[in-house]
């Protein structure tokens, strides 16, 4: 992903999907989290396994994270450079210090 570390596309992980679930009739679909899958069918299967515990009768939407355009009110600020085409900012890798866990 970083320029100095180009990856073989086949070795790259499965793309990120956002998952939306309607738990009960009468409710909107609600964003519940994300997961990785190679294709849409796999994303739906994983979403059902992971976020609904296979409860019958709930409705699930999955969408590739990169296909969601997003805005927040904060970004109306002229001094702030928005990255308006991603649901999350995906900066380059953070160098996370190796540290003693404080779990």
């Amino acid at each position, binding site marked *: 992903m970083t320029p100095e570390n180009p990856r073989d596309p086949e070795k790259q992980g499965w793309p990120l999907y956002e998952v939306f679930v309607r738990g009960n009739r009468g409710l909107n679909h609600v964003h519940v989290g994300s997961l990785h899958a190679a294709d849409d069918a796999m994303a739906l299967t994983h979403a059902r396994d992971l976020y609904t515990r296979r409860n019958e009768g709930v409705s699930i939407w999955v969408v590739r994270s990169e296909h969601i355009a997003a805005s927040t*009110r904060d970004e109306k600020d002229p001094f702030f450079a928005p990255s308006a085409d991603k649901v999350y900012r995906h900066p380059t890798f953070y160098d996370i210090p190796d540290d003693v866990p404080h779990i």
Partner: protein
Amino acid sequence: MLGARKRVTLIPNEWSVGKLVTMTTTDAAEVPPPHTPDGLQEHFDATIARDQRVEPRDWMPDGYRKTLIRQIAQHAHSEIIGMQPEGEWITRAPSLRRKAILFAKVQDEAGHGLYLYSAAETLGADRDDLTQRLIEGRQKYSSIFNYPTLGFADVGVIGWFVDGAAICNQVPLCRSSYGPYARAMVRICKEESFHQRQGYELLMTMMRGTDAQREMVQDAVNRWWWPSLMMFGPPDDASPNSARSMAWKIKRHSNDELRRRFVDMTVPQAEKLGVTLPDPELRWNEESGHHDFGTPDWDELMRVIKGDGPCNDRRMERRRTAHEEGAWVREAATAHAAKQAARAEKGTAA
């Protein structure tokens, strides 16, 4: 599962998960948007001060982001590595009911790991990269999972102690200042309370069984007590990052505070169960209103964290092997998806 017989309160009422989830999200209508670059920091500080949630696209200080990624990743790694000590007993569980419970529990842990990796990804981390860091030993997981499970009673004690300690640590994180982390924790804590109950219920059942079973329980309690106390981390005066994390509301209580809470919670449960906690210094202190207890072997904790625990190599090796042996599967799925996309494109063009 536990029926109406259960009287022991495993989670103090004031910690009831449901009460902790009335949190608000960042709302720009309440906090005016910043008008200068400096205003970003003020805006962030104000959000934290108001006990509101920071959300993925909000501006946040680099240190906050890095600390969170590290904390969430270590938490996620702990869930995934934590599947191993108990997972070894699914195929050997002595009744079908216990087999199903344990299978479901270990599956939950995989789910928890995934919720947490998902939360870390909202901060810009990449799961493959985090996995790589784990299997190369560059990121840690909870030291408790480097101890072996020697008998089936260990499954019960892990539920009671380890999941109990996790609940003490994690329930306050349902109010973490970072929205996706807090929301993941709500879900996780609900399931952890099941985990703790199944563990305690297994032990109660075993204590009603044969002498050999009671011995198994006491032996497991003796082996897991001190490592469980170490789960809360080093003492406060040796925990340099804690203060900043508390100021950011990533962490809500100090290590020692949580450890004491765990001891206070567990002692009456041990009495009810009929086991002895292996600490001669453990006694009720009328004055402080808490239990006094002995000091864990901090050198041991440091050794285990540095990789010299009884099972560090085995745990890492298993995770690394699974990841490496799964590579051809993941690559095949990616290749198939690419071929399908190409076929679809060709179909549209034709």
